């Protein structure tokens, strides 16, 4: 049910959104349905004792209260078997660092919707570099105004165009890191 119905369904919705067949309202309705499904499945999955395939801390950067994209990514990551710690919106660098320290994730995810807030991702990454912890984490960034060039410029490991790309990239990078 998780893989074929919920994740599979959202993957199709994501593709149709990218291709201009579906629009934001339809994506959000589908996400609401998946959220409801996940609420039912989560405790059942926990009972199976299945280990997560990786851990992610995710949050929207300081100055930005938009979380639709972040929530979609968090949900798709959870559906794909990741443990996701969502630290919310308007997150300053100190809170990102505290969450990394507390949860020791494989991945840090940062989201921004505004052109004015997306440069804050570089503040977080530069602070991680200063503290000598940048290479301890896979850093993925995403959000409507971002692009690959921006992701490269701020020093992220990857720019995720959408939630499906985030999941694929996360799986690939976590596997590569563990194999190294």
């Amino acid at each position, binding site marked *: 049910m998780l893989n074929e119905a919920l994740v599979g369904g959202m993957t199709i919705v994501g593709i149709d959104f990218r291709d201009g067949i579906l629009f934001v309202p339809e994506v959000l309705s589908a*996400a*609401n349905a998946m959220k409801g499904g996940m609420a039912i499945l989560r405790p059942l999955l926990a009972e199976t004792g299945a280990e997560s395939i990786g851990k992610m801390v995710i949050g929207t950067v300081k*100055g930005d*209260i*938009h979380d*639709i994209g972040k929530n979609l990514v968090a949900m798709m990551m959870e559906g794909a078997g990741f443990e996701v710690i969502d630290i919310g919106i*308007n997150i300053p660098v100190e809170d990102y660092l505290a969450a990394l320290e507390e949860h020791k994730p494989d991945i840090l995810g940062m989201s921004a919707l505004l*052109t*004015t807030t997306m440069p804050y991702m570089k503040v977080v990454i530069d602070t991680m570099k200063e503290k000598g912890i940048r290479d301890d984490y896979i850093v993925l960034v995403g959000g409507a*105004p971002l692009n690959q060039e921006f992701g490269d410029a701020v020093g992220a490991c990857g720019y995720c165009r959408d939630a499906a790309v985030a999941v694929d990239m996360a799986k690939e990078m976590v596997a590569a890191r563990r194999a190294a």
Partner: protein
Amino acid sequence: MISKANGWEHLQPQCITAELHNYPEQITGAVKHLIDIAKSKDQEIFVAYGDCGTGGQLDAMLEAEGVERVPGSHCYEFFSGGEVFEQFNEAELGTFYLTDFLTRHFDRLVIRGMGLEDKPELMPMYFGHYKKLLYIAQTNDPKLQEMARQAADKLGLEYEYYYGGTGVLGDALLSFNQRIAVELKD
């Protein structure tokens, strides 16, 4: 409105649809298309559009084209001015902004444009973190103020009003107009 008020009949405003605010990746291409047309007619060009979510791509294109733009990241910002807008933002991050235009077309661009007419259950996903609606007015129009208040009610937000007039946009257009007047004289 600004051109008419100042008698700038030589200025020819060309518009791209405001609905592109919901599809910011299309803004740069739409503006470039209008620039190409204006350049083919040897016209002087000034862009009165915010970055509005293009992630700096609009400015990169304008720099390559040698075209000037009104300063500001958001189109509603240039009606209040950057400093005042920053104060609004600091006072309440969760502020949803309306201008005269957005107030007039609120139902079309926000309610229907975001699918809320058919799916009102999506309201918390869109506006869950917003606290306040601030109407930055260009005109002192009680009817528009009432419409903005109703818009705030529809979104379940506190209502505030600020009269910004034509703001930085008016100043920028005046400056552009003076520059081209000098160039034409020369």
